[in-house]
């Protein structure tokens, strides 16, 4: 099976400044903030509708400047993982 990385249009970001700040930053860079990731405090699920849904290339564009945003501690574009049922 293809071993290439498949990038999605979902991001995980870590913004210690709280939900409001996350909301601001999301809209500033064109993301939709889908809320906190589970029970992980300060981690948020961002979705970028104008990015290719599945690509072997990590996405470029102005939205990727989010990683330079000082209030953003960590950004990870989500990659599809091969998981099998046992």
């Amino acid at each position, binding site marked *: 099976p293809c071993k290439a990385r*498949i990038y*999605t249009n*979902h991001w*995980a970001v870590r913004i210690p400044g709280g939900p409001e700040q996350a909301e601001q930053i999301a809209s500033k860079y064109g993301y939709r903030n*889908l809320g906190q*990731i*589970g*029970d*992980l*405090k300060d*981690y948020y*699920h961002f979705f970028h509708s104008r990015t290719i849904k*599945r690509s072997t290339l990590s996405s470029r564009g102005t939205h990727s400047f989010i990683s330079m945003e000082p209030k953003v501690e960590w950004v*990870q574009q*989500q*990659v*599809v*993982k*091969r*998981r*099998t*049922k*046992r």
Partner: protein
Amino acid sequence: DYKPSYPGPVQSSMAQSNSIYFNDAKWSSMWYIHCNDNIHNCQSDMNIVGAWKRGYTGKDVVVTILDDGIERNHPDLIQNYDNEASYDVNGNDMDPMPRYDASNENKHGTRCAGEVAASANNSHCTVGIAYNAKIGGVRMLDGDVTDMVEAKSLSLHPQHIDIYSASWGPDDDGKTVDGPASLARQAFENGIRQGRKGRGSIFVWASGNGGRSRDHCSCDGYTNSIYTISISSTAESGRKPWYLEECSSTLTTTYSSGENYDRKIITTDLRQRCTDSHTGTSASAPMAAGIIALALEANPFLTWRDVQHIIVKTSRAGHLIAPDWKTNAAGYNVSHLYGFGLMDAEAMVKEAEHWKQVPSQHICVENADKQIRTIRPEHVVRSVYKATGCTDNANHHVIYLEHVVVRITITHPRRGDLSINLTSPSGTKSQLLANRLFDHSMEGFKNWEFMTTHCWGEKATGDWILEIYDSPSQLRSQKAPGKLKEWSLVLYGTSVHPYSFRSDKPRSLAEPQPEDEYSEEYGGPCHPECGENGCEGPGPQQCITCLHYFLKFKNNTRTCVPECPSGFFRDDKKRCKKCSTLCESCVGSRSDQCSTCRSGLYLLEGANTCISSCPDGFYLDRDYSMYRKCSENCKKCTSANICTECKTGLSLQGNKCQLSCEPGTYYNGHRRACEKCHTTCATCAGTGMEACNECASGYYFEEWRCVSSCNVGYYLAEQTTDNGDVHKSCQKCDPTCYVCTGAGERNCSTCVSGYNLENGVCVVSTICKDESWAEGSFCVLVKKNNLCQRKVLQQLCCRTCSLMG
């Protein structure tokens, strides 16, 4: 084959009589829950009914299944379904119902859920192991699974959900090395730190179905994590199922499917149905989750580590068949196939009832060994690290081990050719990695964390030996050999004995314990045989560690002894281990390691085995009560130097066996070969004509040699043996004859000088002169002793000697 007692009026589910009966359709097929040895050869010792009888059915415990959804309206699930423990991550909504399609692909989660908490006594399908627990499902596999999807699932409502059960992972294709990425790792740590109000979420994981593709579950970061309880499977028979993977991070085992003739696991299925097609370690993980739910009901305050300690203490090798069962230095039996053995629900709830929380976890990251070593084909790289257990740092000091992790970076042209072992200071060897036939990757391992549970309870300090083997499975370029770049040990455990605060119970509760009078914290004196770590009571079976040796009983309890009793031997880990049944004393547990034998048996020299009858080639030495070897070449003997039968090709000479030579030859002991006899011999015992045993034809025995014709003074005599054979030999003539034709004095044919032959008799020929003084008794003696031929005597006794007769 379980014959439910006919209900008449429907019995209550917890029947007052000895057996439990539910009216669920498949109840009678659930061998792994209700049968035990004495019912029609049924084999199940997870003792689930035993836990139920103690009143534990999972009440108030919340379990969720991370999978492809849950059919929450299934008649067997609807009653226990918990919305709060559910979510649809793939669809980003609250409803985890699976997506239905023709392939029925999304049945997995519903099947897992039924094993845990299908309702009991509702006439539907099956009965969950924790049939009163709350069950939820997270739909997260039915779409793109990303690090974030996993993190969301693993950290769903950690204050509400107690147990997360996952029956999935990286490909089990025997060539993947993958594990939780950063978010999922965060989720694990978050759950462990904060979940269940700080007691830690319980993550249960299926160890993998890659047996056929020679996969090794150490390459799966989820089962390798110390935060997950990795579960493997065994078939009803106790045999290893074809799909099972081995590794040292597996903690315990539950039943699952085996070969097609093995009985199956029953559970709920999509579209409100029932199935016995749920197989593999996928079926084992939820079963373990259900059992852990029973223990959490018995003691909701158990932390995530308490649960792992209880599993280690109560799981049992039982009838599980594995070639690598070993007992570690803490006295636990462990295998790479089944971890510490089959889960025992009843033993777990009993331990849980009185469990004292184990001391806080310490983590000791030993210094990395950064010395680069080349890994050459067919060679082993051995690296020894002297661990201190971080004695210099009170918050990280580890004396008693729980998990051990080896972080390792290796470059290598073909990862599948590598195998890695780790040996603890107590000598327990864990196989961290086995060769993987299909792993051609050149990526090596980058700071990969291998984990072993096999040193659980052992001491941390001392020499840890890492061994890396490179066994090329096919030709490889020699240009770039492998390199061990760096490795470090991470020791998890406690700085005080985990059970030293225990109040009342000895190490294991497999058997019901009489309420002993030490229900308070024990502060009294310890038994003299206790070691330096104190005790839980005055008896030798309540020591934490032993001064000399310890004897372990079937029910997992143990007692400290000054010496091992007869029938046991002591090994290098201060354990008294059983000799083979035939031995009285021994140096090992095999039957060929006896040093003395039980009465009626004798030690076979050289084989160190005990036998009752004396085999050929041996004789009984009563002084030493042993069978000793006969001398060389001897087939049967009565003592070391009395042979009674020789081996083929040899013949008995006296009490010895010698090479039996062809007739006409004899065995020369010096030259150790057969040599020709003298020409006059037909057979002989040695060289020369005096050594003949039989004469050649045409030759006759005369005294001890063979002659062609009798010499003077001998005549040819014939003897007929009993069987009619005629034997000829030269016999001596009568003394009065010089030459004779036969025996006696009447067959003389020639006389000695001074005698005349008269009718075959020799008479003295001399005239006697005057009467000699000696005539009388003296001369009679001379004549009786045939001395008349002597000249002097002849004259002296002339008259007597000349008389006839």
